């Protein structure tokens, strides 16, 4: 059985920092089998039409998180964005809200730094743990945060978030989802350590619950939910401390 093919007109944003003063679109016409993803079409271009095209990818199976790009204006993992779901004309741009390094490659230094600031690791107050201790965790406790562990750092959520676009000092969806994931972890004791960074002026309160981040997330992490839960948490904590009998 041979697969149907379709002629796709790709419009790819190109930028060469050594020659160009600003990016421009370049058109490629590619005959694509219907089961191809956009990443396959880009690979075809790179191998057969234009070896100078730069973009990131690695696993081609929604795990590495490096092939995020704008596909017809929507932040997408190009390995799971299929030709059959797209019109004949497809516009491919580097992720929105990030500086362009070259062609479809963006500069990620800022979010790498932000992920660090969320301290996405288990923090114990009794560090270092005795060597013979396991931190047990019942399944119910795992399910509290499991969805937030699915994040692959593809940064599609940052490309979708207008508050990050408008003000890049906002720590942003994935980093906050990460922080929430560890805050909810029954083995973690670092919540108060993360609070300072996250509840500050560029923390959770800069999110106005547009929800765009959750809609584009290819792994259904739902960072917007994590952020709202952190806000609710912050508000409840405050009242708990003020009410009579509360710990202060």
């Amino acid at each position, binding site marked *: 059985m041979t697969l149907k093919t379709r002629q796709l007109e790709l419009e790819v944003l190109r930028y060469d920092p050594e020659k160009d003063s600003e990016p421009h679109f370049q058109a490629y016409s590619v005959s694509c089998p219907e089961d191809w993803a956009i990443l396959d079409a880009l690979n075809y271009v790179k191998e057969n039409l234009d070896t100078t095209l730069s973009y990131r990818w690695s696993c081609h199976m929604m795990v590495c998180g490096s092939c995020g790009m704008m596909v017809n204006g929507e932040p997408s993992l190009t390995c799971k964005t299929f030709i059959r779901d797209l019109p004949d004309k497809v516009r491919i741009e580097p992720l929105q809200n990030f500086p362009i390094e070259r062609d479809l490659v963006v500069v990620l230094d800022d979010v790498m730094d932000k992920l660090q600031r969320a301290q996405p690791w288990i923090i114990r107050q009794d560090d270092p743990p005795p060597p013979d201790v396991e931190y047990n965790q019942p399944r119910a406790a795992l399910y509290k945060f499991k969805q937030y562990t699915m994040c692959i750092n593809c940064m599609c959520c940052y490309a979708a978030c207008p508050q990050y676009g408008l003000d890049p000092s906002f720590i942003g969806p994935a980093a906050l989802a990460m922080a929430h994931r560890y805050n909810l972890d029954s083995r973690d004791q670092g919540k108060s350590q993360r609070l300072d960074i996250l509840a500050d002026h560029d923390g959770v309160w800069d999110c106005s619950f547009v929800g765009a981040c959750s809609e584009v997330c290819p792994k259904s992490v739902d960072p917007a939910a994590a952020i709202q*839960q952190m806000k609710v948490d912050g508000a409840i904590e405050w009242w708990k401390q003020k009410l009579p009998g509360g710990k202060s």
Partner: protein
Amino acid sequence: MSRQPYVRPMPKASWYLGNARYRRYMLREVTCLLVGVYCALLIWALAALSSGSPERWGAFLAAQQNTAMVVFHALALVYYLVYMTFDWFKLAPKAMPVQFGEQKLPGSVIVIGHYVAWIAVTLFVLWLAGVLQT
């Protein structure tokens, strides 16, 4: 190789125009104006009521009765339901997920719960106002 990253800033005042998701968000956010308007109307009503004179209350009610107000309230009601009430319910399970043991309560159940509660609250208010007493 020299690095010269190209920055594409978001237009500060018009960023939401080209994107349906952002437009919907803005339509939701401006419902705050309606909340403000109805708070003002309620305060106006309280002012008339607190004067203690039935005439002033009657004058307040009379001031509300015109076609422009009918049109405004009707449009406001539809807009408010779609962009404020229903949106708020849709987002509620995200902010307050419920988990029993290993099971997360599906978001749809929480949303339906909100609708049921909302219908009850609305009927209660209308009953208080005497709309349902015939």
